[in-house]
């Protein structure tokens, strides 16, 4: 599901006209489309209002796969013209009447097909040309809400996109009235950009790949195994075709948990063959000790050759067997292995 955010209702007007958004009673100015696929939030103007509103929504509705902020922005450089539409690359923040830039920034997902620029969210309306010039060192346009939405989206780990339309150029002083007069035009352009850029998106995300694997009937993944699966999928950038090839190599048993374990081992080898080889070598070293009932643990970072052995002695015969296993273990070979003799 997608959350569409606007600072003002006027900016969202074309969306209300095009789509059947109905109020969602959980929060004022929060709406749900009839398909249930899109939600729309009016955050109000200013970063504090936006942060409060979006945080509320994300606290009770946790199903968003992406957030898109739409809105107007003021140009900070002369190279931008009114009604130009951009994808925002990074959101910065300027605080106080002096528009002091704050360190924390939020990178956004950029939208292919639109030019990319940076946006600085200001706690104040920026009308003074001197302040505009000052902010132009850090960003290309100024708005009133994006940074806060970025903050909340990051906390919730939801990808954020922003489409901004230039509402006023650097020299425009009475831009508020202009925006009001042209609001439907601005809103229609934002809607057009949304239709062009998002409605035909077909690319499978990693999450979709993950869902596909965990829903396979021959596999059962525990919570920690699901975490490992996510990690491997993310590290390897593996495609579904490659994954299918790996799954075909696995000898499927009746035990679905064992199948999941085998798939993770295969993915581990795929993701890092050297480490897999290292673990097999360690297994080889420890095999005889383990078979005799001596549990061996080694430094997991491989920085030190030290080993920790634990065992129970059950009889004299058991003791002799373990002593024999220890005598057969070559600590020198182990040390050489740690020092790179593979």
């Amino acid at each position, binding site marked *: 599901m997608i959350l569409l955010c606007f600072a003002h209702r006027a900016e969202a007007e074309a969306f209300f006209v095009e789509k059947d958004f109905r109020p969602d009673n959980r929060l004022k100015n929060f709406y749900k489309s009839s398909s249930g696929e899109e939600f729309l939030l009016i955050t109000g103007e200013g970063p504090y209002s936006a942060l409060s509103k979006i945080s509320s929504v994300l606290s009770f509705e946790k199903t968003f796969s992406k957030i898109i902020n739409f809105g107007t922005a003021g140009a900070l450089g002369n190279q931008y013209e009114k009604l130009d539409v951009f994808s925002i690359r990074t959101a910065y923040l300027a605080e106080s009447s002096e528009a002091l830039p704050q*360190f924390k920034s939020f990178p956004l997902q950029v939208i292919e097909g639109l030019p990319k620029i*940076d946006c600085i969210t200001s706690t104040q309306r920026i009308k003074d040309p001197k302040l505009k010039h000052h902010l*132009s060192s850090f960003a290309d346009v100024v708005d009133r809400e994006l940074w806060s939405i970025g903050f909340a989206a990051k906390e919730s780990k939801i990808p954020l996109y922003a489409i901004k339309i230039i509402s006023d150029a650097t020299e425009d002083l009475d831009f508020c009235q202009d925006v009001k007069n042209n609001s439907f035009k601005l809103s229609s352009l934002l809607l057009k950009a949304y239709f062009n850029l998002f409605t035909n998106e077909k690319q499978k995300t990693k999450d979709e790949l993950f869902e596909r694997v965990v829903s396979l009937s021959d596999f059962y993944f525990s919570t920690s195994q699901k975490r490992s699966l996510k990690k491997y999928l993310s590290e390897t*950038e593996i495609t579904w075709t490659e994954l299918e090839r790996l799954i075909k190599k696995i000898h499927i048993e009746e035990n679905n948990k064992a199948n999941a374990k085998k798939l993770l081992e295969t993915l581990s080898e795929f*993701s890092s063959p050297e*480490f897999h080889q*290292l673990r097999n070598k360690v297994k080889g070293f420890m095999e005889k000790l383990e078979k005799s009932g001596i549990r061996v643990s080694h430094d997991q*970072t491989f920085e030190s050759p030290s080993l920790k052995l634990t065992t129970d002695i059950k009889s004299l015969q058991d003791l002799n067997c373990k002593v024999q296993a220890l005598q057969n273990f070559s600590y020198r070979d182990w040390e050489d292995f740690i020092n790179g*003799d593979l």
Partner: protein
Amino acid sequence: MFNKVFVEKDLVNKSHTQDVLKKIRFNELITIDRYDNIFEKVKKPYLQKRDNLNLFLAKKRGEIVKEAPDAYGLGKEKHFYFIHAYNCIYECEYCYLQGYFNSPDIVWFLNHDEIIKKIDGTSKTHPNSWFHAGEFSDSLAVSHFTNEIPTYHEYFKGNSTAKLELRTKSSNTRALESLEPLSNLFVTFSLSPKEVAKSIDKKASPIKQRLKAIKRLHLLGFKIGIHLDPIVIENCWEKSYQELIEDLSNHIPISEISFISIGVVRFTKDVFLQFSKNYPSSNIRTSTFVKSFDNKFRYPKPIRSNALRLVRELLTHYGANPTNIYECME
């Protein structure tokens, strides 16, 4: 090349500044009081260096010459690095600058006379020391724009006990070719197998070009150093290093290389986080990495010791003097 160029107001009318501005391309020129009022004031994502790179022309203040960490160079002499720039035009995936500065924007410091004064003071306190350029930026890549090499050459020519290392991944040797070789000037090149360099040394000169530059400078009489660092373990890496060293030996007799450093790819925690974010599909397979003795993330010791030993053996096989090889940051 650059989006905005910020120039400190005290420098804007200097002839060196104007020379630099004439040589570079940019969209907008902005005069500022001090670069540090803007640079790193906001966290600018590293990958914006690809499409929104700014340049600052500034004066370096504060610490200009810094002592290098242990295992930085060869021998027992003291090693220092001096700061003539921040950030680099190249984009090497493992580069520590991505987690070091909070902005990829480039700063070129133009007060070279003051930098040399500091080098001179340090050199007097610590005779026979090494001074390395290229800790925070490639030392040759943009030298045809910045034009500072002759100034440093002049100083080290008159101060033969101090040694200068110019470290690079470029093949831009123009600034050096018109200068005379010095016994205390070492031009050092970082090399990786060509396929690895192609995939991870983004925008840096191809290995073929770097090897040609090595040959060119060596024939002119310049002292050459080599950094086989970072070594990246990938499929058939042993064969790739064998080919690289053989290729190198076809451009310069390995025995005539002044020193060779070898080091395996490593990351501090901050850089590791940035790297994982910036290059999720990198060929540097970090799932093997462990937190090692100095809290940096590296391959497990058996893997990296094996790699270092093998590369060392290859180098000696091709004629390197074992005493001229050192392990960097190990």
